């Protein structure tokens, strides 16, 4: 029973993530309308299944008369893009630091630990907001900022798992066979810890997507008129008492995507026998 529930959760996570990724990729072909096209005569139209809704706008329109369904679909692009790029960026930084620290130990490891401690001490959202505000908001700046901030769990997990494999026989065999250090790190250590890192990647991807939404919600993330889900919630905030669906729609999308990624991560962890946190 419990086992089947887990498989179901993994399958559900997989379907959600793949589904939203497909929607993001195919956005230009499946959106009914231009997500940036304003129509001030048709502002705040309710969804088609509610009273007063029209078939032209499945999820209604926003405060500038833009088609909400089309904006929602394009929003998936932004969330997915942020999630994937941030994880690539932070994964590279964190894995490098963690593997080097865990493999060489001693002073090098002490330096790596110090860098991790410093990163943990600085307040995440505050620093991200500051960087975006002072450098100027754009998708690239948000990706780089989050990528430079969200690597610490990669580093921690890569470090501990590297320490575990460092003294195993196949590493000793590689040394004895005269392999170089870079070869051992890349071809012997990395493949044996990568399943832990994949699980961390799902966690960080979910976190990056939630953080981008929070930054955009505070007005210092992805700049308008891009249809980021966080920004859609911020823009619709003034109308939420009269038409709650304007914040329900992008919020549910965000919730479902993050839930899917987390289910996928949990399922993969069970399957791959990886640790969640070291």
């Amino acid at each position, binding site marked *: 029973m419990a086992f089947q529930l887990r498989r179901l*959760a993994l399958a559900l996570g997989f379907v959600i993530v793949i589904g939203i990724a497909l929607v993001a990729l195919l956005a230009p072909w499946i959106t009914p309308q231009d997500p940036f096209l304003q129509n001030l005569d048709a502002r705040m139209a309710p969804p088609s299944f509610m009273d007063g809704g029209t078939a032209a706008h499945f999820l209604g329109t926003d405060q500038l008369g833009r088609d909400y369904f089309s904006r929602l679909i394009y929003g998936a692009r932004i969330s997915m893009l942020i999630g994937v790029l941030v994880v690539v960026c932070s994964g590279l930084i964190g894995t490098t630091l963690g593997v080097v620290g865990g493999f060489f130990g001693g002073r090098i490891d002490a330096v790596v630990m110090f860098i991790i401690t410093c990163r943990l001490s600085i307040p995440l959202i505050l620093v991200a907001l500051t960087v975006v505000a002072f450098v100027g908001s754009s998708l690239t700046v948000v990706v780089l900022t989050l990528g430079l901030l969200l690597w610490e769990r990669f580093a921690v997990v890569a470090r501990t798992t590297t320490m575990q494999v460092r003294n195993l026989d196949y590493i000793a065999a590689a040394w004895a066979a005269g392999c170089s250090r870079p070869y051992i790190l890349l071809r012997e250590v990395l493949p044996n810890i990568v399943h832990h890192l994949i699980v961390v990647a799902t966690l960080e991807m979910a976190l990056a997507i939630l953080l981008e939404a929070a930054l955009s919600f505070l007005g210092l993330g992805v700049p308008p008129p891009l249809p980021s889900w966080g920004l859609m919630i911020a823009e619709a905030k003034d109308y939420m008492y009269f038409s709650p669906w304007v914040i329900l729609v992008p919020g549910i999308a965000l919730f479902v995507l993050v839930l899917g990624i987390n289910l996928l991560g949990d399922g993969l962890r069970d399957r791959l026998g990886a640790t969640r946190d070291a």
Partner: protein
Amino acid sequence: MLKFLARRALLAVLVMLTVLTISFALTRLSGDVAVAMAGPQATQQDVDTIRKAYGLDRPLTVQFVSWVADVASGDLGRSYLYHAPVGELIRSRLPVTLTLGLTGLVIALCLALPLGIVAAMNEGRVLDRGIMMVAVLGQAMPSFWLGLLLVIWLGVKWQLLPISGVETWDGYVLPGFVLAFSAVPALMRLTRGGMVDALASDYVRTARAKGLTRFSVVMKHALRNAAMPVVAVAAVQLGFMLGGSIVIESVFALNGVGYLAWESISKNDFPVVQAVVLFLATIYIALTLLADMFNAVLDPRLRIS
């Protein structure tokens, strides 16, 4: 023990110095701070006045050294927006954020501990799975969105709780809950994990064999051992909550340190920005230092390595 404390304190000081550098560097990212502060309509003369008044005409290294010296003597600088010392601004906003953070922590523990204990006692059964599923669902909820939903339904539609401001104590309930929400899954997992280990241990079997009640075994023997890491992580979570309150304060219109930070960030009030970053980092460093010492006192094994 003394050696451990000394080493740990030295580490904290080194981290502090790094954070000082980072908070200084952050506010210089925009290139010319004076231009950004003066705003788009400013004349060259305005920019020059600001540059002189804030000492921005000096070389960066001189500015940095004087910022470190000022901080060391307890002077965090002057706000450009409020024309007041930054230290005073933070002090006047701190009670709101601190109350919010502590409310959040208490609510988080009140939810996480019982849920974690019940899950551990029913390990592998439907109740356990159900509780863990709720944790997964909760983790996926964007906190600012949850805040807005609570404002719409609990605050406006059903009028149960105030939705903004903290004139009365119940103003802290909704924001405290939302802040707690993000910390609950981690604390709950930790409680559950610790309790599962503790319940399977020899001393719990002994306690059972002695004929103690189930309540006494769980609460006195198992929980006491499982709670240690939870306390340490709770301290760290409090640090995260104080940093994360910037989002919650904006949703519930609370005038705390978080709102001060957001305001100064969006208006280029760089003395406040660098001071708040430094201030929150200091709280976090102090909390982790305390948690480490607490653990070292309780667990001698940690002092040796």
